[in-house]
């Protein structure tokens, strides 16, 4: 019987091996034409800071080479449609060519900013975004883990007044700034500053189905009102840390910041369907180009926990 099984196994294995040798993987050359190469503008801006704009070239889908950053663009900055300056290029990394066009002007809140980038071969690309004011808010830490209950979940509330003047977009982020013990080879302990950004906060008023580390919401349901929201989050407490600070970032963001980020937030994939890989074109505010030109104005509240 065993002998028969062996023969059967060898027979089947031989057949399958033969099939697997002649089964095939071949490259497909798409006959459809690729889109023309365009400027790619990447920029997040915030009040009281200079504007940093990165510009690169888009690629054809079959191009696997490194991104080519552009340093030969003429980038003009406008505030409320009034020309401010032509931005200069600042090289950050000689090897990769990574750099930014930087403004000397410090951006102010409640203004509309626009850039026009002209490239010798790729033409003109432009974008504009309103920079909202930093929000005023109060925050209360209602519950948190501690040395007795290190696994207790956290809860906090925020209260703020929504402006009736504009349609507002917001996000809430929770971070921990910790002093972490590091034991060196000599056995000495030193403390190093570290951050934990991956804290998910959820609220009934602001669902966060993808468990993203920032919770995005709009003022659709409380336009122009004073609003209090309660958030739950996975609080963190560890007695080995010398210092634990919890930071709540509450940000009033431009429409394109909201749109650009929320378009990309996906639920955590568990490889059980391909829905997460659904082909999708990101919509942005860059005219004749790709990327994003996004604004955010954040305010912070810090709770010293240890």
């Amino acid at each position: 019987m065993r002998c028969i099984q062996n023969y059967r196994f060898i027979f089947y294995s031989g057949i399958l091996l033969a099939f697997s040798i002649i089964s095939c993987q071949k490259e497909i050359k798409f006959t459809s034409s690729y889109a023309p190469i365009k400027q790619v503008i990447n920029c997040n801006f915030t009040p009281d800071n200079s504007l940093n704009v990165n510009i690169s070239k888009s690629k054809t889908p079959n191009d696997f080479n490194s991104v080519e950053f552009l340093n030969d663009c003429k980038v003009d900055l406008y505030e409320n449609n009034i020309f401010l300056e032509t931005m200069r290029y600042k090289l950050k990394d000689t090897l990769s060519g990574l750099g930014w066009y930087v403004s000397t002007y410090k951006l102010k809140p409640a203004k509309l900013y626009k850039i026009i980038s002209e490239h010798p071969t790729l033409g003109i690309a432009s974008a504009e975004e309103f920079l909202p004011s930093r929000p005023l808010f109060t925050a209360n830490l209602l519950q948190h883990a501690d040395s007795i209950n290190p696994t207790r979940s956290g809860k906090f509330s925020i209260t703020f007044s929504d402006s009736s003047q504009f349609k507002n977009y917001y996000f809430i982020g929770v971070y921990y700034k910790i002093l972490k013990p590091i034991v060196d080879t000599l056995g000495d302990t030193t403390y190093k500053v570290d951050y934990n950004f991956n804290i998910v906060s959820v609220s009934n008023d602001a669902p966060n189905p993808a468990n993203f580390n920032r919770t995005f919401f709009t003022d659709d349901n409380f336009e122009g009102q004073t609003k209090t929201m309660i958030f739950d989050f996975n609080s963190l407490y560890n007695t080995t840390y010398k210092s634990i600070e919890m930071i709540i970032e509450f940000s009033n963001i431009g429409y394109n910041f909201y749109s650009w980020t929320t378009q990309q937030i996906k639920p955590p994939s568990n490889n059980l369907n391909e829905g997460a890989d659904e082909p999708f074109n990101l919509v942005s505010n860059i005219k004749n180009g790709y990327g994003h030109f996004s604004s955010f104005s954040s305010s912070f509240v810090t709770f010293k926990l240890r």
Partner: protein
Amino acid sequence: MKNVYFLCLLLISVTLHGYGQNRFILKGKITEQKSSAVIAYANLFDSIQNIYAATDSNGHFEIQLNEGKYSFEISSVGYQTIFKEINLIKNTELKIELKQDIQLDEIVVSSDKINKTAQNNSSGMTTLSSMSVERLPAFLGEKDIMKAVLLTPGIQSGQEGARGIFVRGGSPDQNLVLFHHAPIYNVAHIYNFLSVFTLESISKMDIHKSYIPVQFGGRLSAVLDIEPNFGNTDSWKGDYSISFITQKFHIEGPIKKNKTSFNFSIRDCHAGLFLYPLSKKQYKSASGNEGSIAYYFFDMNSAIKHQVNEKNTFSWSFYVGQDFYNFTELKVTNTTKKTEKRSTDKRLKWMNAVNTLEWNTKFKKLNISNFYNFSWYQLNPKQYLGLEQIKQPSGDKTNTSTDYFTKSRIMEHGWQTNIEHTINKMHLLNYGFKISDRNFLINKVNYTVRDTLGNVVDEKEFKNPTVNAIDFYVYADYLFTWKDKLELKGGLQLFTYTASKKAFFYALPRAEIIYHPIVGMSMRASAGYSVQPLHLLTNNTGDIQNDVWVPATKNIAPETAWQVSGGVQYDHPKGYSASIDGYYKKMDHLTDYKFGTTFLSDRIPWETQMINTGKGEAYGLEVFFAKTKGQFTAWCKYNLGWSTRQFPELNQGKPFFYKYDRRHDVSFVLQYKLKKHFDFSIAWTYGTGWRMTTPTSSYASDLTIVSYDQANIPLVGTQAMITNWNERNNYILPAYHHLDIGMNYTKDAKRVQHILNVSVYNVYNNFNIFTVYQDGDTDINGNKYKKYVKLSIFPILPSIGYSVKFQLKKDKNQPTEK
């Protein structure tokens, strides 16, 4: 006034004519000669005296006739027609046996012959018998009825390995597959290699795709109604067969002769015997890591029929099947600081079970069938992830493991009462009701993390609330037949559906007209409205199995469709037939995934992840030719079709072609019986390639900004290459086609028959696309580039299958034939 006088005279003459003769009852039962299975809706026709009768669903017929001689032509789809002369001088009971038309009628498209019951007469209906599939070429030694379905007009497969069938531009979930009136929610084993039906477990399959009879409800595109094999009432028989991937055993016979019969079959897949060791070797050489793949499935069918008396019959059928897939991997990475071992153990199990109890009774002119059915489908993915870290040089070891269990299930109980009411030859009625109670468990997720000591450090359970959905419909179908020329059929289904405290109501009319200008020719037209209160969420290129059925709710409306179709068919007495049909279908409330959704992931209300705003349109032509008599038989089909979808949320709201918008779909089958022992078959299939969305450009950008203190510096946070895409499904992949040949050698011995089947799948070794994926490569100048690679998994596949059949008692002789 003249007309009234004439009518009175006619009535008197007819009455006087009737008084002059004795009237007797002629009744009987028509069964299949080989298996003794009853033949439902067989026709008895005396063309001289223009007398017609048909059997009910239990194969019985009964008519009252004057004393005299009659010559009946007895026929049924898929059986050889016989002629029987009867001299009626007293009440007579007949037992008639028909022989399956094994050389002929491999596939029978409804010829729309007049004189059928209201239930089974519908245009565009195709009937496949298990015997007709036996002579087709085999795939890896296994013959499958669903492969034969793909050779019939209007039906196509998606791609190599795609799950489900596609009927007239619809999606696979729009087809209702019934096994003895119980819906089967998953009809395919892994990658559609085989269906869950063994040939021995089924008697025949009716495919309705134009006028869908009103007793069937809840799907938009087609109904595949499978009748189980209840076994031979006269003698015991069985068989054992073995092929490359499966082995099966089947037995059937009478428990009580001519009263109670049963059928039992079991099949298992032994591909895992060689897949596991081979995959282990190949994985090691391909990736450098330890890894293996295992796969296994089984099917078990059972059916019993008991005839209590002439008027009452009970039958029961049962099916259960399960697939099991296992993937394991162990990745070891060594650095100067630590050694890391990551282990993955993915287990996927999916299972189907159906069960039906039928009671059939006759009361005067009514034939009443009652069905209780139970259906169950469950998908269980499990993942065990382990991480072992050994720190260097201390050798300290830490272990963490994560178990991730997911479960999705649909369970259905249903009751149907169907009444066939034969008023007379001209007026036939079919009416009844059906109620189905479905319970959906969309997903239940258990997540457990363990530390080095095996202690649970994190444990979560998430369950989307189960949904109970009830649909109830009453229906009536009326068939009016005028002479042998015209049939008018109208039906109405009143459909109610309730789920999540929301009720939906639909009036679903349908109508059909069939005209026979000459003998053998029929011209037909039909229209119908249908509703589908459940949706299948699946994909065809992702994991091995990820079908999740979800109900329509107050947020996800049921899908609806209108279909009109029409065609012409001609059947020549010498066995040639041809037909051409056209159709137009408009669909509404179609569903799809929202961007980036994962249905089985945790903490996400499933309804928020779907879009239900889709509209669809499908239209096309179907041409069919067949030669059904003689040593050489053949059939050929050609479908020309268009199928589009439109969602406001997808493709910028513009219409786009459906992934399986297959413009041309052709197949032909040639069969030749050589002497007693050999028969040969050739089948060729061609279809326009499936569609995919292709990229147009890519660019670097911030994916999401994580670091709050550097958020204003672009490309410092999480970077990504973002891809821009062309219009959805804009690229047509190379056409799908293959030629298959098969040969059966049959050797008869005393009560034993040996059958050797030799088949070759994909004779000219065409590389049909199984999936397309992206890969990186380097050109001759050393530049890296991305490419799309098509993967083919079925090259030329020769196979051998062997089966031995036994029968304890020889078949009876043929009934009297003229």
